[in-house]
């Protein structure tokens, strides 16, 4: 087993650790072991990072199975391979899972053992998704993320948790059915499931209609995950009713599979045909951006505001991809990472808030600064990051995405710019509402501020957000080669 496999399966250590605990160990003990379990993939991911930085290549494969038909051999290998984009997502995953375990400390009281078991299986799935270099392996891990998430929502969520879990499963199940069909359709043609091999095959193939058909199928499949309006309603529910610690992973990492998939399966496998969808993607991006923003404007619940903000921010990813140039792709990738960090921060803070006030209703909250200045400071910082303030990661991402889309589709870019104004409006409305003004709500009177260990997740996330914002090349350098391969194959 190579280093990459060890990395991908490293959450099993945590899983085993937790399973060894007796069923009636106190939640505190369970959480402590879960944290140890969470740190293992985190540490390994940074080791992988440094090794990758030195060698610029990290891959492993062995034959899994192949099948002879009348005319040719169909091959499915077990293949893992890193590139900068994948590595960035892997680092994001291990970071956010660890922080989510920290965040869950006060949130998860019911059967914590089971909770963390599911969490580690989920992490395993996510790491596999981002490390696979092969469509079937990707699909296997993709499916593996579905089930734990279903239970995490349904069992530990709030109010409408069961409906939400069910809705989640239906949307994602249908999405993965479409994905599987598309993967199979590609596999049958190419005879290989490896991304690179498929790409090479597709560049010699002339059937454009077929390619567009497959790309559209991928667009639908990953459109559920991203999500693309109107396939988004499950994700709003998850944002609102899943426990905040789980939403950190959901918004921070799982939605990113949609963006990653779109780039890897679309731009990565069909570099010549994919640009034909530029206008479609731009239209969808604009719809996401504006639809989400307008809806975020009138929500009366903080979690709903952030949910629609996510919808809106995903529009920027689509717009960036629609640019079909280096700037646009780079913007989309930056936005993927950046939104992961920002939404994890936002929902970490939401978790802290719910813990103390039991509500996120905007009308019931106000004047948070009086009793919790540090928490409201973090809320403000997170909102500023969300609205794309320069010096934070969101700005760099938006800037590059818009730069990209303006080269070929300036009209779409110009309309999209309205989105950045609306973003400021809804974020400020929500945040100023809870933190400024006179104190509202009894829970706020004896509320404690963020302190000690609670500061850690918020501080770490904010530090990464600012690092990328102030020195974007820290992330950018990692992505150069990936971007070149995406763009290089483009015809004219």
């Amino acid at each position: 087993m190579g280093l990459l496999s060890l990395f991908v399966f490293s959450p099993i250590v945590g899983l085993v650790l937790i399973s060894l605990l007796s069923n009636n160990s106190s939640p505190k003990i369970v959480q402590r072991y879960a944290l140890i379990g969470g740190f293992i993939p985190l540490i390994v991911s940074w080791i992988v990072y440094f090794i990758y930085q030195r060698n610029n290549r990290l891959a492993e494969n062995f034959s899994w199975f192949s099948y002879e038909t009348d005319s040719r051999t169909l091959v499915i290998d077990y293949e893992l391979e890193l590139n900068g984009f994948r590595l960035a997502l892997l680092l994001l995953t291990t970071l956010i899972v660890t922080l989510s375990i920290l965040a869950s400390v006060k949130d998860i009281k019911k059967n914590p053992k089971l909770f963390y078991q599911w969490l580690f299986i989920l992490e395993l799935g996510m790491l596999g998704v981002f490390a696979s270099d092969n469509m079937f392996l990707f699909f296997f891990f993709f499916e593996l993320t579905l089930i734990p998430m279903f239970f995490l929502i349904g069992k530990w969520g709030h109010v409408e948790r069961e409906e939400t879990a069910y809705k989640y499963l239906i949307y994602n199940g249908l999405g993965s059915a479409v994905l599987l069909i598309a993967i199979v359709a590609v596999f049958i043609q190419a005879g290989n499931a490896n991304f690179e091999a498929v790409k090479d095959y597709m560049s010699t193939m002339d059937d454009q209609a077929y390619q567009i058909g497959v790309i559209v199928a991928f667009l639908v499949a990953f459109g559920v995950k991203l999500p693309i309006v109107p396939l988004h309603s499950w994700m709003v529910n998850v944002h609102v009713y899943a426990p905040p610690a789980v939403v950190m992973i959901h918004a921070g990492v799982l939605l990113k599979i949609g963006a990653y998939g779109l780039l890897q399966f679309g731009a990565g496998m069909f570099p010549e045909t994919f640009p034909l969808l530029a206008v479609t993607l731009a239209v969808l991006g604009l719809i996401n951006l504006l639809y989400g923003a307008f809806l975020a404007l009138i929500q009366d619940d903080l979690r709903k505001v952030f949910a629609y903000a996510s919808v809106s921010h995903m529009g920027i990813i689509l717009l960036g991809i629609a640019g079909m140039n280096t700037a646009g792709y780079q913007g989309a990738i930056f936005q993927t990472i950046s939104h992961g960090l920002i939404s994890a921060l936002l929902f970490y803070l939401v978790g802290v808030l719910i813990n103390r006030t039991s509500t996120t209703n905007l009308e019931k909250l106000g004047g948070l600064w009086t009793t919790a200045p540090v928490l409201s400071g973090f809320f403000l910082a997170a909102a500023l990051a969300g609205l794309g303030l320069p010096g934070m990661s969101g700005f760099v991402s938006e800037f590059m995405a818009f730069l990209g889309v303006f080269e070929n589709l300036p009209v779409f870019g110009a309309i999209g710019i309205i989105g950045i104004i609306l973003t400021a409006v809804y974020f400020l409305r929500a945040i100023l509402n809870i933190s400024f003004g006179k104190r509202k709500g009894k829970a706020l009177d004896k509320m404690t501020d963020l302190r000690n260990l609670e500061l850690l997740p918020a501080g770490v996330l904010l530090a990464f957000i600012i690092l990328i914002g102030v020195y974007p090349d820290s992330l950018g350098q990692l992505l150069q080669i990936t971007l070149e391969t995406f763009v290089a194959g483009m015809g004219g």
Partner: protein
Amino acid sequence: MISFAWLIPLFPLLSFLVLILSGKKLKTVSGYLASLLTGISFIFTLGVIADLRSVTEYEATWTWLTIGTTDIQAGVWLNPLNGLMLFIVSFVSLLVHIYSLGYMGENDRRATYFAYLGLFTFAMLGLVMSPNLIQFYMFWELVGLGSFLLIGFYLYKESAKRAARKAFIMTRIGDAGLLVGLILIFWQTGSLSFTEIFQAVEQNEFAPGMVTLTAILLFIGAVGKSGQFPLHTWLPDAMEGPTPVSALIHAATMVAAGVYLVAAAYPLFLASEWALMIVAVIGAFTAIFAATIGLVQDDLKRVLAYSTVSQLGYMMLALGAGGYVAGMFHLTTHAFFKALLFLAAGSVILALRKQNIKEIAGEGRHLAITKWGFLAGTLAISGFPLLSGSFSKEAIFAALLEDGQYGLLGVALLTAFLTSVYMFRLYFMVFHGKGADKPPKSVPVSMKIPVIILAALAVISGFFATGFADWLAAEQEYAVLHHSPTWLIFLATLLSLGGIVFAYFIYVRKQMDREEWKTTFSSTYTILYHKYFIDEFYQNTIIYSTRAISYLMYYTERYVVETIAAFAAGMVKEIGKTGSRLQNGRVQTYGTVALLGLAVIVLIFVVRGGYF
């Protein structure tokens, strides 16, 4: 010294970081620490300016972001214009820091206040040294953040919260224009660096019409930041912030950044007659429009705010008419006398605890230094002969005459008259009259010193006009100072003095009954008092239609999207029901199993059959 220029913004940044991270621990020393660090910045600035006399231009950059084959830089760029701005910003910021020692002396959250001041100063210094448009834009947004935080500093007040939000959003509308402008420039020139953009302009590399379009888009950004019509409404509301903040941000520096943007990108504007024309017309309109509103407002700070809007209009007008030196010179003198007026007004507000000029009714006369300081500022802004404002305004009139803009010159002259009237109305109502006799609360020394220094500058800085022009001309050939013919100087002086006399007869001698005016011209008065109902207009058009769209989407979400969702759920449920007779209510689990099963079946089928 000049190679250490990059350190200049870092001292205030350090002040911000230390104070924001230390919480309340450094409360008592926060003001002194912040002032000290800003002072160091100021000393470095002086050193850099001394070097600039011989070097004239200096650039140092580092790669900030790589996009494909393009490297976007960050760094410092110094030339006479930037040096001038550097001086104004660090100087006024230092004075405001010192003044705040007294003004905010008892505030419990003063560590936060000084932290925000540091953040703002850092951003403003970074802005004026930007070598390219993207760095400029980033700091441009960050000064907006500083402004937002300080407007909302009294965060328990609903009005402060609203004003802060309004300021951020209104300026962001302008910023969107700036962002689009710079992106378009990037695709035209392949660069965002000022020098490379100017080269591209010179060599006609822009597509037809793009020079005008991009210049106008940049100007939209300037309109937002500098409170020009129609994006001016946030600036008067910004007076919710502490008064020293109004002096620094909303009078001397940040609001002048829009003017600075036009000046910094001047070659681009010069290449398009249309763009220049728009700058001039918007500037002239804003100047007179805001002046008329200033005539009837009753809040001390709001009158000053409208006067700032109006004076910024003057600067835009000058730049639009080719008066590069005139515009920048007025920016400089205005920074001194308007900061002075705000700081003096702050002393009045602190001492009297009121800021409605009708309630003050002359009570300010007990504050001697404040009174003389305010008078110096009022005379300067009114264009009283030999004071700084008269020189810079005269330069603007001369530029307009030179450019042949007779109509705009008329507007400018009329505005000069109105300026005298409303400023002396303010002065007389605050410092003349028979208000309470008891001596009000005294003003601490730390607040008097900045007023005295600025008063001196407001009086004498006009005499440096020629040296000022030479300084700017070292680098830019379009930096020419125009001189007015005698008749124009005479006319301008007459209008200025006429305004003062007019105000004197109304507000001191009470020759005319003010209440009677209100009834005779009641509709005019109502319109002016309500600021031409612009806020109400925005409320009823833009804000309502935005909400309407939101609700349209809300119902779409509720009825269309949710119906699709319900349909999908129902469908899957039906399949689940028919598929599994053994179901015991745990549909979800079966659903999962079913889908996974489907996946496996399809896979096996595919591999076996080889076809689909």
